């Protein structure tokens, strides 16, 4: 019957006397959208937790098989919806790696700026939402106010606040204008003050420290064997960041450092995210000052990039070029092979395993979701903690249900 909810599986813990079961979710303010946890509690201490997911499974991977590389970017946006452009950059990075396309310097710099802006965007929401769940509503307001400026920047570049669908195979949808550059500069100037306000409110706050220190500790071995990547792994001591270890886009030109911690608890994960925001601002500052001029589509791979609209309407070659790119049976052909390529998204290593059958459409577009692996580590993190720590731990590992379920 559809109205029945699932029963939890029995574990050894349930054979003990005096345990009670609490259902947490899927509709709950602290489950970041739709997650469900079945907690076995001994008083207030969590003895076991069984996650139940799939409440947002929308069939993304099935859609990837019916849309081509430029159409699927609209869907990929909707996976990690708190940093949409990061997904697009990751998707097109994988597609361009498969097709063997090289980007122009201007395109690389713009994508790098957006990737770092999205990193700030994601971390602000993660911290803001977690603090909202822990009770610090002011911090949530501060974080969201900063995010509005980033929405304005995205809107100026692509027309949409989020779900921009801004990248294309080999380039971008539109080139950026001078006032966009001015907006980014203004954001870089104003961000440190907002950051100081936010961090002054939160990081030395007695209550926050008490609620997050030594809670949800993830050891280094568990992080590696469990597949954790990104801030969650770096807070446990893993010193791996794809921007430095497998450089992509324009990261080689910039001077920044990897942020790591050793404690592996919730407070360490927050610290790593806060420090990463500062590093991101540093990268954006360097990128925007040195933004190269030039085209955003590489002429050598002209067939995969759309030409400028003035050429399309003004010359026959431009029109043919446009036709060749848009019409479904005339697009660029890919190699008949498979490739896995990943980028450092704000949540971790977001990779795509794309299998191509030679056409401009993926035969199989698999997303490697960082949130899935982090949430599977959750039962290990929560054993022995109290019920109110469940909220802190869930917030710190930054699970986004759409990426988790796809």
């Amino acid at each position, binding site marked *: 019957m559809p109205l029945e909810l699932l029963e939890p599986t029995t574990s050894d813990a349930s054979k003990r006397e005096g345990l009670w079961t609490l259902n947490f979710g899927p509709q709950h303010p602290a489950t970041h*959208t739709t997650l469900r946890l079945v907690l076995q509690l001994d008083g207030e201490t969590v003895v076991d937790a069984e996650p139940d997911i799939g409440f947002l499974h929308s069939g993304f991977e099935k859609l990837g098989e019916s849309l081509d590389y430029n159409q699927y970017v609209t869907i990929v946006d909707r996976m990690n919806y708190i940093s949409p452009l990061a997904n697009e950059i990751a998707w097109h990075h994988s597609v361009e790696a498969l097709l063997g396309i090289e980007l122009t310097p201007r395109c690389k710099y713009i994508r790098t700026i957006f990737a770092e802006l999205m990193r700030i965007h994601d971390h602000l929401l993660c911290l803001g939402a977690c603090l909202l769940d822990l009770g610090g509503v002011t911090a949530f307001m501060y974080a969201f106010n900063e995010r509005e400026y980033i929405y304005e920047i995205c809107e100026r570049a692509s027309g949409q606040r*989020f779900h921009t669908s801004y990248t294309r195979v080999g380039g971008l949808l539109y080139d950026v204008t001078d006032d966009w550059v001015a907006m980014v500069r203004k954001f870089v100037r104003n961000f440190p003050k907002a950051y100081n306000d936010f961090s002054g409110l939160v990081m030395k706050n007695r209550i926050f420290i008490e609620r997050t220190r030594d809670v949800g500790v993830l050891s280094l071995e568990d992080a590696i064997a469990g597949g954790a990547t990104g801030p969650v792994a770096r807070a446990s001591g893993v010193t791996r960041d794809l921007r430095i270890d497998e450089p992509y886009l324009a990261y080689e030109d910039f001077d920044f450092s990897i942020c790591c911690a050793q404690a592996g608890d919730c407070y360490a994960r927050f610290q790593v995210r806060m420090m990463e925001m500062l590093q991101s601002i540093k990268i954006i500052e360097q990128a925007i000052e040195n933004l190269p001029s030039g085209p955003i589509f590489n002429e050598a791979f002209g067939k995969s990039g759309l030409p400028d609209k003035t050429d399309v309407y003004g010359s026959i070659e431009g029109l043919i070029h446009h036709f060749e790119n848009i019409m479904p049976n005339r697009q660029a052909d890919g190699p008949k092979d498979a490739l896995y390529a990943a980028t450092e998204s704000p949540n971790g290593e977001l990779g795509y395993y794309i299998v191509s059958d030679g056409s401009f459409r993926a035969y199989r577009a698999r997303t490697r979701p960082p949130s899935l692996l982090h949430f599977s580590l959750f039962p290990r993190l929560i054993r022995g903690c109290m019920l109110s720590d469940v909220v802190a731990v869930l917030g710190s590992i930054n699970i986004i249900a759409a990426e988790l379920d796809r």
Partner: protein
Amino acid sequence: MASEVKKQVGDNVFLTKLDAAASWARANSLWPMPFATACCGIELMSASASRHDLSRFGSEVMRFSPRQCDLMIVAGRVVMKMLPVLQRIWLQMPEPKWCISMGACACSGGVFDTYAVVQGIDRFIPVDIYVPGCPPRPEQLIQSIIDLQAKIQSGGTYNAREFKLRDTPEGPQRFDEDELLRIRERNGLKLDSPKYDPVH
């Protein structure tokens, strides 16, 4: 006589119909229950954050308990695993209650025409206001709340009589034409477990 009363009493008392008074109170203090599943949930949070402040319009608190709310905002796609949860929460909300379907996915399935996403919650839940967009801007959500306020004030009754008249399903049919064709094709095959077996 009426003018005498008015002079004596002044602005301290106003006379109106009970229905209008109740509707005025309810419209201006709609407490939303955010059923935020996906991306529209983030725009819902933005709408209640400091820049586009939703609490100016009466939605001061976003209570997550259905027993304390009167407006359910379904923000985001609803998949078949989540739909029973949605229905259960709708049934738990006390009268009077309204529903806003926010975003293209809640209104009609959006970009996700797949095996898992319900193509519009109005097939299964009664919806009052639809907000298009993917995701809708916070200003659009605020406009939808204003529209709902106007709807409540124009047709509201103090004992919620207007809801008893809506006894037929208002949305599209459960199964579309092409879906029925696929179900009939499927019936040729033997199924392992009948739980989610499509209707014949």
